[in-house]
């Protein structure tokens, strides 16, 4: 695309490429927004659609064109002249036309023929690909306080799986969120769904009913974001600790550039200085790390979802395969047993009902020897 300018931009509001098509240099989101708003007229970024006649009249006046010239111009530039087929012919846009001349069409046709010969089944990713989009795109704009104010900034954030899932290290984001500039980082944190938050630590074979009270999310509330050398810690709750302090001190002792800290709940996106397209870090539960990439920062448009209550908005979610119970193969597994004399394999997964039927008698007493751990399936958020 366009080459990056050679001179370093003194103005931190204008994003420049650091590596072309990869990421930009850091820029301040708030300044970026101000730069755009300074350059545009209010009508350009409002959500109201201007009246066409007014537009034409203004244009004619500005260019000094007469009414006839204007009409001629309008018809010359009309999109009717772009129609490639006779007006009354109803064409299906789903078929590739026969005898295509465009290279894109040739390749597409070839791909279609290949796909139909392979009889590939539709996979669940394609099937639900636009499900989330359908919920939000094109919703009528709300009026009143629920509406996003014009000139607001929209960020698209990709959150990736933790690096322990080698399969998805480089490709798929786990989820894509849309956030507004006035959101705080805590709202982003709350919107990120990770199953390690739901995991329960501990062995519960003797007390299977108590397990749900111990979710990790409630126990380990500390988390931080790392953007451009600053650790943003979550300090909302009294149990939250500053888990980035060890890193900051280690860096001081080891000749690393200085890192600073800030509070997550006090920082809004417009205050951040970030690079677009560059990976950053979100760490929670002390050791569960997610890469975060901000892929786009732009002004709101009238076709975006304008309902403030719907943000942070999920636009893409990766759907994992779920592990089912080893007995019924119907329900998603919730228990993980080891050293189990009743189980066919070690370890083994069971759904709640099968687990209780197999391992406990009618009074709820434990039968036999086994260790049981509550299991949270990766597909829990599907």
């Amino acid at each position, binding site marked *: 695309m366009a080459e990056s300018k050679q001179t370093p931009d003194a103005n931190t509001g204008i994003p420049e490429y650091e590596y072309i098509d990869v990421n930009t240099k850091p820029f301040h989101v708030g300044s970026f927004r101000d730069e755009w708003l300074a350059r545009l007229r209010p009508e350009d970024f409002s959500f109201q659609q201007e009246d066409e006649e007014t537009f034409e009249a203004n244009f004619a006046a500005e260019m000094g064109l007469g009414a006839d010239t204007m009409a001629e111009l309008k018809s010359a530039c009309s999109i009717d002249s772009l129609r490639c087929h006779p007006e009354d012919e109803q064409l299906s846009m789903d078929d590739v036309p026969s005898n295509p001349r465009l290279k894109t069409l040739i390749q597409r046709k070839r791909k279609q023929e290949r796909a139909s010969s392979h009889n590939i089944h539709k996979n669940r990713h394609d099937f639900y690909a636009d499900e989330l989009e359908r919920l939000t795109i094109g919703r009528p704009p709300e009026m009143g306080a629920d509406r996003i104010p014009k000139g607001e900034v929209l960020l698209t954030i990709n959150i990736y799986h933790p690096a322990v899932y080698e399969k998805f290290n480089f490709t798929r984001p786990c989820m894509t969120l849309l956030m507004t500039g006035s959101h705080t980082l805590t709202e982003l944190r709350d919107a990120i769904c990770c199953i390690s938050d739901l995991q329960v630590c501990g062995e519960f074979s003797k007390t299977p009913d108590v397990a749900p009270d111990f979710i990790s999310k409630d126990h380990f509330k500390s988390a931080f974001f790392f953007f451009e050398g600053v650790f943003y810690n979550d300090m909302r709750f009294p149990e939250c600790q500053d888990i980035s302090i060890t890193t900051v001190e280690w860096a001081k002792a080891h000749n690393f550039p200085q890192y600073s800290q800030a509070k997550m709940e006090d920082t809004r996106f417009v205050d951040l200085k970030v690079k677009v397209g560059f990976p950053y870090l979100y760490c929670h539960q002390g050791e569960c790390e997610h890469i975060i990439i901000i892929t786009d*920062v732009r002004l709101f448009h009238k076709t975006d979802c304008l309902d403030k209550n719907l943000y942070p908005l999920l636009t893409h979610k990766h759907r994992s395969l779920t592990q089912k119970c080893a007995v019924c193969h119907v329900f998603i597994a919730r228990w993980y047993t080891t050293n189990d004399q009743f189980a066919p394999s070690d370890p083994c997964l069971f759904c709640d009902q099968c687990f209780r039927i197999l391992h406990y008698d009618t009074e709820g007493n434990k039968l036999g020897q086994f260790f049981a751990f509550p299991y949270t399936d990766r597909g829990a958020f599907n």
Partner: protein
Amino acid sequence: MDASHKHVKADCEALLARFQQTQSVRFEVFANIWREMKFSQIFRGVVKHEKRAFCHLVLNTAYCYFLPPFSFQIRVGGLYLLYSLYYTQTASPSEQIHLALKDWEEVKKFENNAIDAQHMDAVYILRHLMFCKAFRFTAMPTLEMSNVSDLYENMKASVLSQMTTPGDSSFNLIRKDLVSQLSGTVQEFYNWQREKETFDENENSQEDTSQKVCSNRAELLASIKSKAFGEAPETLKSRRHRRVEMNSTTEASAALLNQGYTRILKQSLRKRTRDALLLSGDVQMESASHTRISLLATLDSASKKILKEERS
């Protein structure tokens, strides 16, 4: 999607090249070429869930022609292309054109040039696009999730080295140790091998160490095989198709075997076979072990050919 990107680019360039040849900047001329190429068909045949992504791709591809360093005529062509693609796209609601902040000045300059040159259709079309809110005012138009892997590698490395506490920095140390340990072990093994094979002074000494090793293994396997032939064979599935390979190599290995025999006294075939069997505890396990068979294959190119034929 990446494959279609270069085709889309090729198609756009074909269209713009023809436009350039006309030496005109009128929209009617452009529209004629568009119609003649039936360019709006580019959107046909796109699968439903890929429509938006494709429209985005097409608009982004066309967008670059609207900016410098292209000539004014190409830029006008790019603008017309954007306009046409925006209105003929199939995504609903429409996908917008992403306009980067750093390109705004260029766009404004272009507009002023067009006004000065009285190219009213270009100005009208640009203003019309603004009026229809076809633009999204963004930071960078082309950043999606691409190229994460390299960045991720670097980031992870730097973050890891930053993230570890002093206690855990030993994680890095262990790695370094591992490498030196490995190289030390490999060196030892190599030396041990060399000692073991000093008796092979014929062409084996010219071969690689690995081949010496595999000739030994070939002997072992040949011995096992000869034993297996004597008994009722019960072959694994994995050995069934490899049998052909082994047959053809026994000649080669037998040749080596003979030469090996004439040189130095070794343990008797029976003893060696028994030791080998005892070691693994199972004939089939021994012979089906992955490394040995693949090493066998390197001995003889004929066997490789046969294997290829088997597989095809």
